[in-house]
């Protein structure tokens, strides 16, 4: 009896109005998101897909790792995101002599107050650009990465919360470059996505070369949304519906990554959660209130490539991943 009632409720039309308003809200919000993307792609030319990915990462409350050569527009991307989203922005340049205190902040003795006064470090901002994160020593890296995971920092025994939303974009030079400390797998796992920008196409590059200084254009931009709206968007992303059929698909993907001999080890349950979170954010950006297999397929290479290690030496997971995607049938 109870079961019957539950079933009727869950399938009845009574739920429709609520869902419908939800969609309408989403539609309004996605318009804003589109505006952000449009603005950002005026600064970072020809990289709309990457901008959308970065935004999806943010909406999924994850941190972003950009791996690319110097001068590809990593910093500009971070900067324009902070500006269009109206977030406090801080940039930390990682070097080999960077100390944890340089990131977190220090307590300094204040003579006038006869006590220690805490000077917060650059980490106390909403959007952090950790530039060239793999140039710093593991000690400095871990200071940042712990803050990313916990959303708070503990300095001299006192726990201080970080502002919300808190979003880290770390950039990394390719690991084969000289003077890098590659991030260990466990720390790579803290990043929801890893993207690389790559060279712009010919027309984008022409526009870039012809146009004004990017910094000047940046200055012209204002925020597209209020900070409160960003949190609402993040909440909406987490509420995107995931049907059983989609869960079947995600599980099939996780399963094949574990059974395939191409990788040293398969994807962890955390990676599965990350995949789902990213897919939901991507679905939201597409204006849907439910995730589709296409969403999973779009975000998957960026979500799992830094969590999988291909068995073949010097082989990157990306190529293998694409074949992996092709091999798993959508149930």
């Amino acid at each position, binding site marked *: 009896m109870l079961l019957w009632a539950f079933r009727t409720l869950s*399938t009845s*039309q009574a*739920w*429709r109005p609520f*869902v419908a308003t939800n969609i309408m809200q989403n539609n309004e919000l996605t318009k804003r998101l589109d505006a952000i993307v449009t603005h950002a792609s005026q600064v970072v030319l020809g990289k709309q897909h990457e901008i959308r990915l970065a935004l999806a990462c943010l909406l999924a409350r994850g941190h972003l790792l950009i791996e690319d050569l110097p001068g590809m527009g990593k910093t500009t991307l971070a900067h324009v995101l902070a500006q269009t989203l109206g977030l406090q922005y801080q940039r930390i340049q990682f070097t080999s002599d960077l100390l944890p205190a340089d990131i977190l902040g220090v307590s300094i003795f204040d003579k006038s107050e006869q006590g220690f006064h805490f000077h917060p470090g650059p980490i106390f901002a909403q959007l952090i650009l950790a530039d060239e994160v793999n140039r710093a020593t593991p000690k400095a890296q871990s200071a940042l990465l712990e803050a990313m995971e916990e959303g708070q920092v503990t300095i001299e025994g006192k726990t201080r919360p970080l502002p919300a939303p808190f979003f880290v974009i770390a950039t990394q030079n390719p690991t084969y470059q000289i003077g890098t400390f590659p991030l260990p797998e466990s720390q790579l796992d803290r990043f929801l996505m890893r993207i690389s920008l790559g060279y712009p196409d010919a027309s984008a590059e022409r526009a870039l070369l012809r146009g004004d200084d990017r910094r000047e254009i940046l200055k012209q931009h204002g925020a597209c949304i209020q900070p409160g709206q960003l949190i609402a968007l993040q909440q909406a992303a987490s509420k995107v*519906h995931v*049907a059983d*059929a*989609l869960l079947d698909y995600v599980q099939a993907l996780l399963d*094949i990554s574990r*059974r*395939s*001999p*191409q990788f040293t080890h398969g994807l962890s349950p955390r990676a599965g959660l990350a995949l789902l979170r990213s897919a939901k954010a991507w679905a939201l950006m597409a204006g849907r*209130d*439910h*995730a*589709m*297999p*296409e969403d999973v*397929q779009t975000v998957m290479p960026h979500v799992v490539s830094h969590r999988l290690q*291909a068995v*073949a030496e*010097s*082989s*990157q997971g*990306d*190529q*293998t991943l694409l*074949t*992996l*995607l*092709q*091999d*798993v*049938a*959508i149930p």
Partner: protein
Amino acid sequence: MNMSGFQQRVKQAKAENLWLLAGLALAFTPHFFRLPLLVMLPSIILLCWRLLFEWRYLALPPRTVRWLLTLVGILATWIAFGTLVGQQAGVGLLVIMLCLKLMEMNAQRDVGVVIGLGFFVVITVFLFDQSIFMGFYMLLVVTLLVTALIAFSRDQSVIPQWANLQKAGAILMQALPLALLLFFLFPRIPGPLWSLPADGAGAGTGLSDSMSPGNISQLSDNDSVAFRVQFDTPLPLPQKRYWRGPVLTQFDGRTWTNPYPQRLTTRLSINAQNQARGTPSLYTVTLEPHQQRWLFALDLPAIIPPDSRLSDDYEIIANQPVRQLVRYSMRSFTDYRLAKDDIPNISLYLQLPEKSGIQARQLAQQLRQKVTDNAAYVQTVLNYIAEQPFYYTRQPPLLFDDPVDAFLFDSRRGFCEHYASAFVFLMRAAGVPARVVTGYQGGEMNPQSDYFIVRQSDAHAWTEVWLRGEGWRRIDPTAVIPAERIENPQDLARILPEMTGAGTTPNWLKKVGRQLSFSWDRINHTWNQWVVNYNTQRQQNFLSRMFASAGFDNIDWQQMISLLVAGMTLVMVVVAVYLLRPWHRRNQDPAQMAYERFCQRLSQRGMQRQPAEGPLDFAQRASQQYPQRARDINNITVLYERQRYTPYPTQRNLQQLQRAVRNFIV
């Protein structure tokens, strides 16, 4: 990035090739012990070359070198065999050419050729050996080759290699019912399907057409089975278990042969010509291939098996050398009188070499003069052997110059062939017609089953003496040696049939060993009966018995084909029902089923949805392909998406979807 992709491909190719190379290497192994090194060594080198190519990127030879290698391969085969046709040369050529094909295996097509030839090599192994072990070994090889076939035809990097092996196992298991049906029901053609040119190289173990000192004693340690017998009547008495083989009449002082072309007959009626007594023994012999033409039977055969004839000396000669297991039913009279009154060519049985056995001739004269008739003389000679210090040994001293005299007066140590030879000599020297008979004596019952085993170690030589009025009488001079003059106690049982079981007391380990060997022999026997020798007649009997209740009493080949087709259809139907599993579908999401129907409609028009293609992507692609249907395609996709992926699927929505799919026409 590109580099890594390339390496990935290479790595994958290596695993597939390893299955193939392992399969081929194992298929070649039995040939390696059989074919000359001149052919097998280049093959192995080529195989290793390919392995190194896969492993260490050793380059494959260019076209001109391949041509050269081909010529060398043909030449090597020709040098090794002197011909390019024939069983062994053909197999040699096949193996070496297959290995050369590995040198230019670049495309999928080449892989197909190589694997196909690999299966052919597997078949050629059975030309030489059809034992149960080889059967299972080749099953392993076939599994590896099938795995290679699967690995090569799959274009996926994520499937682990052991999954291919698993798949191969599954495929072979699925093929099993069909294979069994084909095996039991495919009509057998009487006689071999093709007759292979005989090469002399196939040496068999067993008796030969001549006997010189040491011939038979070298068989005495050979425990391999000569033939197996199933008796339908009670076993003959131990002293009657003489299995007649080659009969030898010509002696050159050292070696007994049978040089005259035998007059062979297909007609025989023992009852009219000879006096057979008592009830005949009925039995079936399963003879192991021994590359010669004799068929063995108990003294004295009363019928002639098919495809064979009988010589004047009562040897059964097959029309073809026994190259594969043969099975024949026999009838023999163990009590008989043969050629009672007269024998043709009496001089044949009195022939002696001119210059040997001077002393022996004198001895024969002396002994013959003491008695009145030939029968008494036979007994005198037997007594002479029994009384004089003659020893029975497996390691007789080598005899030079004049073996007969040396044995009779000097060494006096010998094996059955020495005694048979000397005895016939003494008979002939006194004018008594006599001949040497070789064959097998004794044998043992498999206590775990109902058949009789005769081994190579049972090989024996005895004699026959012709006495007027009595006919040919079998005399076994070895049997008169007293037990204390037999050097090896184990031989007691061999030469004195009445004393079976004598010898050293076997301990429990020996007992277990014997039990195991009997069990193994029984398995072999069953294999021979049901697999190797499943011929026309046996098939006929088996099927008639199987289908007797169904009203078939004599199944002809048309009925077999009908049964075969019916059986195959049944298997196919079972497989089809299992694969389609109509009862399984009910669990599936109806929206998914409707959508699959939609995809099926499109795929009929060549618009195939990839398994990993999402519905939205597919809708976009299909709309581009069929712009005039874009609205329907999008409508169906939206309905399907709503039903399957959104939180608000409804019954009405499902019905709409189903209706839309029904009405959808490309």
